[in-house]
């Protein structure tokens, strides 16, 4: 960590928006009042695959208060992709606003706009649709088989790798010669890993409000991560030129990739275009949970060659990705799965192949991590297995093989995002220290379970002669099940809503007359009781420790470009306008800090305005971990320009003859010399000369606006990069597995991240903590489940279980600081990386606890129990032999 003196960056500056958010000021999309607002609602397909034979909207249209009904019959057919990516989008153009074929339960059938939501909903019921039900496929492994329906054969669709085989996207990348590498290996290990459907679940749903302004331009106020892509993508759909559209992003209630998608803006805009009325369209939670976007499920096959000393010789990674009914982000997500996972260790020979296939299930899209969590679950589990086979400490094995400063990551060059990439050489890497800090904190040496099979031989609870203890225990196991309801099998939970209801604290609060609010405290007391029992009583509760190492990138090299504009005001404040999109990440605060550091003032002098296609310069948006690195650099550059101008004006002012700056006391003007701009420094809102004289920023700006050589002090800059320096991360989990129930309880989760210099360490920590909470859900409790007809079964937060405040394990986060020479003030990205390694760290910890290897997420008690049973079987059959 270089010793650099920072004034504004590397500080825990309070978030620029936190006061208004703490006082509940109306700052989100929905927090405006509009006269004449009408409400749109969507009719979704109840079938996984069907052709609309007839659709009758007359009755709906006749309903009083209905303003317009949209279906495929009255909407032009324009193929596009809903993926909010740069142009030309690497995702296939396989979507139209409305189609005569529906391809998953939740696909669009019609849209109604009416004077109220209730009228719109009633109108939806009045739409008569005759479906011809078509065969559907829910198994990605069968997608290309004969007899399986092809989903996108229409000739007007473009960019699909192979419509005839249902393959949306295909990637092949090689480094060296993997076959030769396997031949050189002394040990070749293979494994298959599967990851499941999960949803981003931002608490604010997708919501858009559109209206026409006085000039006949369409205003789109929307909860999005990608305002500029929204404008570009909806323009041809609604038949307006880009010039006629303004997209405004107010505060956003979380995105996590789900809002890197043009999900509803087109419909809302179309209603306004057709009716001239302001229109509001918001997804319900149920819609979010099946008709929005998800993380791509993948089946990942890994094969690795290694020498006995732990040297890697080759890896092959083969991904079968389920993109659902449409190919949104299909190509690029699987590219990222490969390029991140295969960059972390020194594999001299690499073979990578990935196919994204269509199924009749919900549409996958962008979700924090963007392929990396999938790839790293496979890789990190695999590395753990390999280490065991080699008889090496998994930590040591990783340490020997991970990339270091000065080394290239060859896969990055052949595997970019949707196309070839650019050569990358690691310029900063703090992974060793991450591993060290995390290992120390978790107690790697002391807390690893030396004998993962010990539980098989341990005394059973019922064997205990101490009746008191065994009573207590069975009681606890009851409670344990209760409090862990989230971690029990999801399907059974859903089929039994009633029993679930009593377990979730939220249901109770609704009853204000219910005096017994104690029910909320149910999950509490358990932890301590159980841990008391842990030692010396039984081997039923087995603890284990596992870890993972991951990396991400900072922006898409050669693709992402962000721009910024800064101007000075006469009180020494500045307006900073950026296209970059703060969706709750703290980007606006980070920009204020970078600007203040560069200009020599304090962050509270920077008024940040972001993401408005009329008012700010371009930015791709909040994705690919690009904001700090790409847009932050743009802000820094723009501020450097403004600073130069400030210095020039100040130099004139500090001229002893012509200048206006006060002379220091006791000095004659003849003894004072005019300073050179290069000797001037900006500090604390002042420009200071070496002789101690200074002028303040307000004086500088007043002069430049009103007095001499008048001009606006301002800077504008763009930044793009062929570098994308990876942040690194080591994550450690300690778990407790109940050998009788299979329930996994995460006790501690340690994360150490190298994100370069953290511009705001507290915000960086917040990114880690939030990502870890999401990742815990990914690992253990979240899963979208479907019945045999592809109908979603968990459509509310009762059934789709994200972590709550009482579910969280003990979290610890460390920022291991390096200095990234290409980043703004040494910074790299932070937002996505901490979500990558939690699931594999937990899976590895479960293995360490009880010897059960879970290769299929989520880690449910059922799967663990099955693993335990088969271990027991093999143990007893071995004993018989």
């Amino acid at each position: 960590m270089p010793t650099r003196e920072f004034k504004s960056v590397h500080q825990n500056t309070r978030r620029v928006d936190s006061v208004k958010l703490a006082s509940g000021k109306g700052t989100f999309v929905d927090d405006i009042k509009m006269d004449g607002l009408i409400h749109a609602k969507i009719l979704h397909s109840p079938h996984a695959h069907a052709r609309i034979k007839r659709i009758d909207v007359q009755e709906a249209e006749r309903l009083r208060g209905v303003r317009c009904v949209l279906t495929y019959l009255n909407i032009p057919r324009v193929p596009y992709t809903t993926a909010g990516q740069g142009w030309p989008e690497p995702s296939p153009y396989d979507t139209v606003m409305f189609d005569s074929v529906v391809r998953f339960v939740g696909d669009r059938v019609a849209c109604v706009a009416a004077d109220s939501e209730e009228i719109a909903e009633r109108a939806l019921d009045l739409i008569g649709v005759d479906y011809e039900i078509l065969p559907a496929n829910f198994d990605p492994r069968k997608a290309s088989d004969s007899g399986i329906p092809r989903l996108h054969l229409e000739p007007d669709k473009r960019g699909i790798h192979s419509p005839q085989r249902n393959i949306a996207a295909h990637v092949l990348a090689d480094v060296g010669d993997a076959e030769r590498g396997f031949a050189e290996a002394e040990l070749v290990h293979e494994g298959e890993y599967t990851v499941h459907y999960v949803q981003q679940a931002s608490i604010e749903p997708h919501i858009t409000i559109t209206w026409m302004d006085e000039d006949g331009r369409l205003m789109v106020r929307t909860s999005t991560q990608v305002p500029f892509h929204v404008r570009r993508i909806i323009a041809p759909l609604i038949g307006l030129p880009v010039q006629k559209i303004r997209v405004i992003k107010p505060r956003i209630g979380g995105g996590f990739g789900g809002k890197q998608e043009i999900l509803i803006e087109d419909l809302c805009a179309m209603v306004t275009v057709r009716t001239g009325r302001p229109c509001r369209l918001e997804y319900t939670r149920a819609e979010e949970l099946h008709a929005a976007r998800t993380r791509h499920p993948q089946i990942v096959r890994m094969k690795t060659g290694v020498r006995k000393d732990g040297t890697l010789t080759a890896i092959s990674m083969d991904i079968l990705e389920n993109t659902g009914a449409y190919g949104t982000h299909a190509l690029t997500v699987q590219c990222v799965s490969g390029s991140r996972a295969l960059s972390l260790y020194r594999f001299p020979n690499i073979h990578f192949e990935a196919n994204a296939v269509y199924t009749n299930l919900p549409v996958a899209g962008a979700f924090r991590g963007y392929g990396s969590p999938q790839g790293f679950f496979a890789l990190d589990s695999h590395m753990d297995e390999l280490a065991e086979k080699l008889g090496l400490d998994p930590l040591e094995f990783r340490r020997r093989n991970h990339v270091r400063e000065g080394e290239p990551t060859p896969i990055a060059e052949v595997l970019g995002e949707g196309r070839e990439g650019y050569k990358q050489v690691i310029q900063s890497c703090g992974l060793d220290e991450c591993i060290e800090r995390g290992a120390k904190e978790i107690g790697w040496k002391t807390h690893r379970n030396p004998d993962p099979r010990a539980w098989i031989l341990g005394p059973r609870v019922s064997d205990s002669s101490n009746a008191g203890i065994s009573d207590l225990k069975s009681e606890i196991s009851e409670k344990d099940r209760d409090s862990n309801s989230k971690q029990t099998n999801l399907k059974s939970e859903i089929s039994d809503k009633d029993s679930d209801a009593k377990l979730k604290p939220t249901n109770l609060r609704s009853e204000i007359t219910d005096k017994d609010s104690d029910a909320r405290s149910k999950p509490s007391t358990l932890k301590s009781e159980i841990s008391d029992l842990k030692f010396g009583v039984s081997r039923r509760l087995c603890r284990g420790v596992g870890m993972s190492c991951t990396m991400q990138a900072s922006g898409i090299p050669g693709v992402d470009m962000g721009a910024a504009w800064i101007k000075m005001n006469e009180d020494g404040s500045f307006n900073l306008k950026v296209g970059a999109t703060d969706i709750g990440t703290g980007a606006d605060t980070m920009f204020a800090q970078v600007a203040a550091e560069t200009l020599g003032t304090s962050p509270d002098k920077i008024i940040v305005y972001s993401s408005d296609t009329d008012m700010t310069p371009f930015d791709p948006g909040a994705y690919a971990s690009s904001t700090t690195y790409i847009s932050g650099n743009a802000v820094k550059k723009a501020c450097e320009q403004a600073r130069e101008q400030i210095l020039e004006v100040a130099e004139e002012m500090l001229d002893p003859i012509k200048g206006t700056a006060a002379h220091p006391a006791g000095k004659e003007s003849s003894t004072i010399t005019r300073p050179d701009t290069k000797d001037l420094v900006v500090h604390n809102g002042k420009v200071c000369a070496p002789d101690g004289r200074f002028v303040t920023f307000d004086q500088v700006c007043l002069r430049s606006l009103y007095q001499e050589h008048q001009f606006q002090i301002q800077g504008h800059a763009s930044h793009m990069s062929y570098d994308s320096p990876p942040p690194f991360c080591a994550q450690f989990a300690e778990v407790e597995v109940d050998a009788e129930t299979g329930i996994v309880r995460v006790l501690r989760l340690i994360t150490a991240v190298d994100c370069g210099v953290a511009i705001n360490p507290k915000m960086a920590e917040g990114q880690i903590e939030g990502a870890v909470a999401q990742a815990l859900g990914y690992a253990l409790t979240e899963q979208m489940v479907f019945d045999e007809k592809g109908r979603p079964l968990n459509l509310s937060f009762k059934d789709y279980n994200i972590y709550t405040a009482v579910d969280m394990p003990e979290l610890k986060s460390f920022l291991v600081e390096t200095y990234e020479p290409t980043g703004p003030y040494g910074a790299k990205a932070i937002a996505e990386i901490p979500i990558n390694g939690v699931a594999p760290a937990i899976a590895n910890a479960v293995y360490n606890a009880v010897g059960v290897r879970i290769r299929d997420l989520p880690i449910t008690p059922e799967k663990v129990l099955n693993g335990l049973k088969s271990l027991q079987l093999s143990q007893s059959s071995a004993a018989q032999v």
Partner: protein
Amino acid sequence: MKLSVALNAEQREFDVPANTTLLSLLREEAGCFSVKHGCETGDCGACAVIVDGRIVNACILLAAQVDEREVITVEGIPWVMASMSGAAQHNELPEASDVEGGAGHNSSDSNAASKSSFQNPEAFSREEHPSTYELLHPLQQAFVDAHAIQCGYCTPGMILSSLALFAEKGLIELPSIKRKTRVTPVRRKPGIKKLPPSEQEVREALAGNLCRCTGYLKPVEAVLRAAEELVSEG
């Protein structure tokens, strides 16, 4: 139907369809945009508000259910603070309701009796407190200082859940504009030390507020910090 609701220090009259939820009453009729919504099925707590001293999810209550009751949203926090500093009339409350132990809820009958008793509207003067920007409750301030706010969508609900917890623990009293209504169930006898909630109690209080951004660590920290502060202030 006609409703009369004591909303953030003001007795307000509404006339809404019978099927109006409390959520839409608050957002659409009363303009309380601090009340958010993330599910409208009672599962996320983004719409949490305080009704007669207890935290409830506004989306699954009908507006009619708060007729003659007292509702506090985040917009009302300056009023909560004004009464903290003694400006409100809670000091005049009768001794009779001085109940220890948290069960001191008045029945709705006595609420009805006090229907028109909105008195002393100057108790909270907007002139005195022109802007919440200068007037953050210690709890809000703690959320700001502890970086407990990311997107901020869950924040109002969390703040109200925590306020209700503080009231339950006797750290604060929730004010009432009704003469006879004791909103805060606990009033400690003088000399009995107030105790801040434990971390577990805070986590339970926030268990109904889903947050997808923070991982709850910093919000819990913020609440504990604010509690400490309130205790040390006495």
